[in-house]
């Protein structure tokens, strides 16, 4: 059994920016332990001599001409935003009071 703790899950949730409830953290801790035990089997065959594959059909240096293509207008880009000022996205304070 892998050693996943509730503290670890709470930390991961913070990194992933999801405000999980205490109940969710407890449930996920148990589930992740089982899942990680199962997927840890990959290390059985992943020996140092095997190269890693990140992409199924490798392609390198996919470039296009450096010219302006079809792009969204400002109006289109902000159309789906929860809050905007007509030309920019509006967000809450970036820093908390203690910062």
């Amino acid at each position, binding site marked *: 059994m892998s050693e*996943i703790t509730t503290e*670890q*899950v709470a930390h*991961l*949730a*913070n*990194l*992933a*920016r*999801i*405000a*999980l*409830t205490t109940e*969710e953290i407890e449930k*996920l801790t148990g*589930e*992740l332990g*089982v*899942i*990680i035990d*199962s*997927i*840890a*089997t*990959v*290390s*059985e*065959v*992943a*020996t140092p001599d*095997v*190269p*890693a*594959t*990140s*992409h*199924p*059909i490798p*392609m390198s240096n*996919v470039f*296009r001409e450096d010219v302006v293509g079809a792009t*969204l207008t400002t109006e*289109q*880009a902000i*159309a*789906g*935003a*929860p*809050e905007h000022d007509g030309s920019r*996205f509006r*967000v*809450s*304070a*970036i*820093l*908390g009071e203690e910062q």
Partner: protein
Amino acid sequence: MSAGDVIRLSAAQLAEKLTAGELSSVEATQAYLDRIEAVEPRVNSYLHISKDALDTAAKVDSDRAAGEKLGPLAGVPIAIKDVLCTQDMPTTAGSRILEGWVPPYDATVVARLRRARLVPLGKTNMDEFAMGSSTEHSAYGPTRNPWDLDRIPGGSGGGSAAAIAAFQAPLALGSDTGGSIRQPGAVTGTVGMKPTYGGVSRYGAIALASSLDQVGPVTRTVLDAALLHDVIGGHDPRDSTSIPDAWPSFADAARRGAASGSLDGVRVGVVKELGGDGFQQGVSERFAQALEVMEKAGAQIVEVSAPHFTYAIAAYYLILPAEASSNLAKFDSVRFGMRVTPPGGGTVEDVMAATRELGFGPEVKRRVILGTYALSAGYYDAYYGSAQKVRTLIQRDFASAFEQADVLVSPAAPTTAFKLGEKLEDPLAMYLNDVTTIPANLAGVPGMSIPMGLAPEDGLPTGLQLMAPARADARLYEVGATVEALLEQSWGHSILSKVPALVGGDN
């Protein structure tokens, strides 16, 4: 021709009647809209029905009447999986976080089907962000399997597959990251094709795992899938992983295959690791019968071993969450989708965390946390790094298998459709549904699922998976169409002709 007959035509048959002027696109579209209205309360395939479908169809009819040269599928209705951006319809990917969001652009595949003058009917239901094998993880309620309304239609593209099986659309688009086109195909008695990675543009497909995702056709016949693939496929400069090669006509390949009736000289490889324990008896029986049918038609059946396929699910559930946790970081309450401000306000990070807590469902949270873990310092090499090595080993297994066989076959799903709720609380059991389909995604090779007959013990559909080397999609259409024709001859009917009636007077 009655409306009931119209909706039972294959897309190819319907297209012929439209071209010949025997039927109008408005008539066909109306027949489908009526069918959707009649059965949708029971099946729940759709998240949104287009208000423009009849107008779009009328325009095709008038252009046809004016003598305009139209493509082979012009005027044929189509359903679109809700993971694909549509400028004129909400696109939610089955998630609460995108409820009501209307994208400012069309996915390339959507733009291409509009250019080919197909008629979008609406958006189909799916597991949230395509994470699931049952459609039960949709934020908008599960889709039900038309074969048995208490059972799952597969996932993540259960909405598209159920819409096809319930005659709510003649064609649909799906997306397949680990089996989301093929596994729903198997459990609903429909055809699903995952093209070679890079064969169809991913631009405007809301990304789950970018190195695995492929968009593809969901249909009733192999020829219909080929016709749709011809429309959506090919190079797209807006997707930097799109393959620049020219592709042959897949419809020609499917027609050739259906006409030949012979598998002379075709080497069919049975993957030893994709069968046996854990496979439902009726699935294994139907698979053995399909092999017999192929052998009688001249195929040379060879057993091949792909020893690292055993590790495919483990590798997949590291790579997918890692990529998904990165891709889903864009749902940050700033540029699109919902925003939840915690009581008393807070910083932008507090708002993001509160939004993602309410906007994401349990499976999405599970995989984002898992991916964050797999990518953490100290675990990266052991988990994500090892999974990428397994990916290499699986590609090598495919390479050696394709030295011995022209196509590889396996059941497309280990079981028939299970009951709603049966595996919802057991994530690992749910993940095992994709045991046969995941290797193709990890290696980028094309895979197709076609109906393989009904399992004797429960009368539910089973699916046959065919796989070919990367870029050999045409081979799958040719062999797939031959096998489809041979199997239907052996049964004396198509599988979908046996789907139970969903409304009174319907047969």
